[in-house]
């Protein structure tokens, strides 16, 4: 399993390399955006950890260039202050972010989740189950505790977007475009209304969520484990 680390700080590169290698990953590290794009194209990593504050290129630009030829999962490493950059990076196609300074267990957890999604790819399984919740993607049927839930087409579409991207932070813009269509992107009030309705039907408490987590100002994440 090969991981590409793009960060201009040698200390961070060293810490990530040591920890990731200890967990059995093969690690390649580079210090600039340019090298990152070249390595992504030439070495076919299965995961990229990308720092947004690179000296030569905006991290978002790196994501756009990589996305031109690869769907490899990208996890962004950003400082808390770079909220706007973070959202831009996610909108540009990053899968997730980890805030610096980060704990290694968090990086590893996010990496595993991203790799799992990649392994799943487009779900071949016609049905996904999360505890007592079952989503039949082929029949577009949702059951909770064995009882069928009556979802509106928009609610179902939103749920489908969430469950097929488990663990991934989905931005407002991404969800709006995916569920409502390309012309949408800023109508966060619609999104909130449907998320609330969906939570209610799924019996999920927003202040102690088991399925949908809110990231204020950014988006939502599906956290229920399959099985």
């Amino acid at each position: 399993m090969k991981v590409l680390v793009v960060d201009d700080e040698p200390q961070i590169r060293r810490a990530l390399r040591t920890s990731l290698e200890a967990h059995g990953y093969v690690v390649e590290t580079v210090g600039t955006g340019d090298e990152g794009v070249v390595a992504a194209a030439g070495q076919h990593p299965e995961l990229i950890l990308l720092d947004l504050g690179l000296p030569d290129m905006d991290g978002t630009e790196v994501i756009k260039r990589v996305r031109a030829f690869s769907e490899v999962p990208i996890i962004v490493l950003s400082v808390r202050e770079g909220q706007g950059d973070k959202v831009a990076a996610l909108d540009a196609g990053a899968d997730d972010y980890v805030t610096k300074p980060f704990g290694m267990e968090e990086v590893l957890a996010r990496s595993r989740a991203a790799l799992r999604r990649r392994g799943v790819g487009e779900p071949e399984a016609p049905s996904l189950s999360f505890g007592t919740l079952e989503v039949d993607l082929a029949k577009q049927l949702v059951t909770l505790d064995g009882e069928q839930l009556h979802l509106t087409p928009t609610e179902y579409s939103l749920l489908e977007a969430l469950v097929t991207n488990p663990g991934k932070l989905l931005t407002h813009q991404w969800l709006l475009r995916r569920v409502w269509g390309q012309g949408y992107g800023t109508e966060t009030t619609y999104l909130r209304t449907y998320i609330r309705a969906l939570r209610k039907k799924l019996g999920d408490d927003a202040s102690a969520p088991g399925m949908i987590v809110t990231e204020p100002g950014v988006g939502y994440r599906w956290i229920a484990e399959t099985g």
Partner: protein
Amino acid sequence: MRVSDPVQDQISFPAVLVGVIAAACGAVLAILITREFEPDGAAGVAVAIFMLAVTVAAVSGGIWAGIIAALLSSVALPLIEHPGAGFQFEQFRDVIAAVVFLAIAAVVGLVVGNAAAERRRAGEREREARLLAFLSSKLLSGDLPDRVLDELVSVLLEPFALATCTVQVTLDGQEMSATAKREGVEPGGPTEIVPVVVASIPLGTLTTERPIKAKPFSRREHELLEAATRQAAVALDRARLDARARLAQLDAETNQLRAAMFSSVTHDLRTPLASIKAGVTSLLDTTTVHDAEQQRDLLLTILEETDRLNRLVGNILDLARIRAGALIPRRASTDVEEVAEAVVARMRPQLGTVLLDLQIADDLPEIPADPVQLDQVFTNLLENASRHSPPGGTVRIHVGRDDGAVRVRIADEGPGIPAAQREKVFEPFYRGREDPERPGSGLGLAIVRAIVTAHGGNIWIEETAAGGTAVVLDLPIEEGPA
């Protein structure tokens, strides 16, 4: 309070008229009386009547009226006493009479004229004194320099019968000016320019202009204008010094704050660094062997201290951003409920035995707010409340509506804050009574207040029924001025 010209003791048309009338009346009376007392017996009477006429003229018309009356009387007396003889001083007596008339006119006229002039001057002095007193009361009221200038020009307008009045000065390198205009009056009349000077340092000029075709400024008015300008200059100087003193005080306070910040930051940064370094060097030390539990303890300490350091750096950066005026909310339609729920969800696992109880009113409107900053408000307030909670205590969060605002109330079961310190807790680096095991940065509430204020909201501290602390904040539903 008009300032009038002093009446000058010069020969004038009214004076001549008064003299002529008095002499004529005297002549008529003298003729009537001399006809009555034929022929010589009335000589003394005619003289007496003319003396009366001269006196009356001098009293009522001044010295020149008296002199005119005296001259006319001197001519009329011989004509009346020796009718038909033509004008001649036939007798030595007539010459004496003429001299006496003139003497009376002079003496009475001077005395009366002086008294009248004295009276007029007294009246003027009183008016001037009142003007200057009025000015000084207006000007020395401790107002700011621009206010002093405004007062000056508006106060001068009326008593000097001005069309416009403008003052321009340079104070501490800053140019300032003020202008007053009387409505419905066309300027373009006589103009007077007076320098504004303090301690022989010229500050600027005062320019006054009367309405077109108005009479020119008299010397007296010019002097009074100068006196008024001097007053204003003194007031300006005082206002300038006051402003400087205020700045200096502000500066001193800022320096004090900076010193407090510096020592606090130095201490707060060093403490976790010291723990981290101690832990790491201990683990790296090859001369001692730590068992697994000891290793874990040391590593947990390092982890906690790193988090603390990270929070502190984040807070310092936020505070720096606030100080630099860079804390501008990126407003979007935001659901306070959603933010509150998300923060509670995130914080719950980190709070140990402290419980979070979230109550949200139905049908809350969305508000124009920065969701990321609101997230920080809730995070800091919950961190703060849980830090001051006893083990097993509950932090109650209530989100409701109050008039035009969404009201958030976060109450803890801690020891409470004395009323006198409730405002202070929002100041940077203020620390209340806190557990030294769980220190805050002293910045959390300062950042919260800055964010709430930037959203046009209010924040304050209340006491709960059980004596704990409740932080209450209102966020306006309509976007208002920050």
